């Protein structure tokens, strides 16, 4: 799992580097464009992802204490938070269209869409991974001594949260 997580983080490191280079080439554009984005949507999604990380950390903690049903409840909450994140992202994209923001508006918005959509894909993968961990919990595949699969799924979800913690100020606040 760690090889997978680290390779995903390397992929985002590459995107961050591209963003930085373009930002240094267009400082004026990158200082004004973030104000045009829907910061409330970005903030809501940040709060949701942080809360979902809390849910999944509690799921692992409950599983370690052999509280299977409690752990499954936390995992279900994680999936719900992930789906809410996707719903907010969808509404944000609709809001962008209404305000004339598209991938072709300028290079900042092209990069914003590329990074945010790429992150959204990772959230969708994360929902599937957590869903798989929930199914395995329900089937009784985990016990307090054998939690590798659940811990791996949780690590992947936290990685998604870590990347978003960088993306939020980068895209919506500082630019």
């Amino acid at each position, binding site marked *: 799992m*760690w090889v997978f997580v*680290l390779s995903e*983080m390397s992929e985002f*490191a590459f995107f*961050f*580097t591209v*963003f*930085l280079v373009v*930002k*240094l080439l267009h*400082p004026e554009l*990158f*200082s004004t464009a973030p*104000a045009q984005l829907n*910061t409330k949507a970005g*903030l809501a999604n*940040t*709060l949701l992802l*942080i*809360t979902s*990380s*809390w849910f*999944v*950390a*509690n799921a*692992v*903690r409950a599983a370690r204490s052999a509280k299977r049903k409690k752990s499954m409840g936390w995992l279900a909450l994680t999936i719900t938070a992930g789906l809410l994140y996707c719903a907010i992202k969808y509404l944000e994209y609709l809001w962008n269209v209404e305000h004339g923001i598209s991938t072709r508006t300028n290079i900042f918005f092209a990069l914003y869409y590329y990074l945010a959509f790429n992150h959204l894909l990772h959230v969708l993968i994360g929902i599937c991974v957590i869903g798989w961990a929930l199914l395995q919990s329900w089937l009784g595949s985990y016990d307090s001594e054998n939690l590798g699969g659940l811990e791996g799924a*949780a*690590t992947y979800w*936290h990685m998604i*949260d*870590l990347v978003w*913690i*960088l993306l*939020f*100020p*980068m895209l919506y*606040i*500082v630019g």
Partner: protein
Amino acid sequence: MNNLTRNPLNRVWFILISLTLLTAAIPENDSLTTASAAFISVLVIIKGRLIIRDYMDMKKAHPILYWSLVLYMVLFSIAMLVIPAIT
């Protein structure tokens, strides 16, 4: 209430939410200067470290793995937020 604060994960969640709200409040009160970009960068590093240490439970992990993740957050938050504000 005691039950809520006894779990360290709850405390970390509360800190993370507070730091996020603080990050979002900065541009509304202040035009973005190098100092505020640096402040946001510090908030990002603190949040990243809390997630890595307490949520990912990396305290007991190999130090190379733990510090690689922390370094990732430090490097990119400085590179993405502070360097462009200086140049």
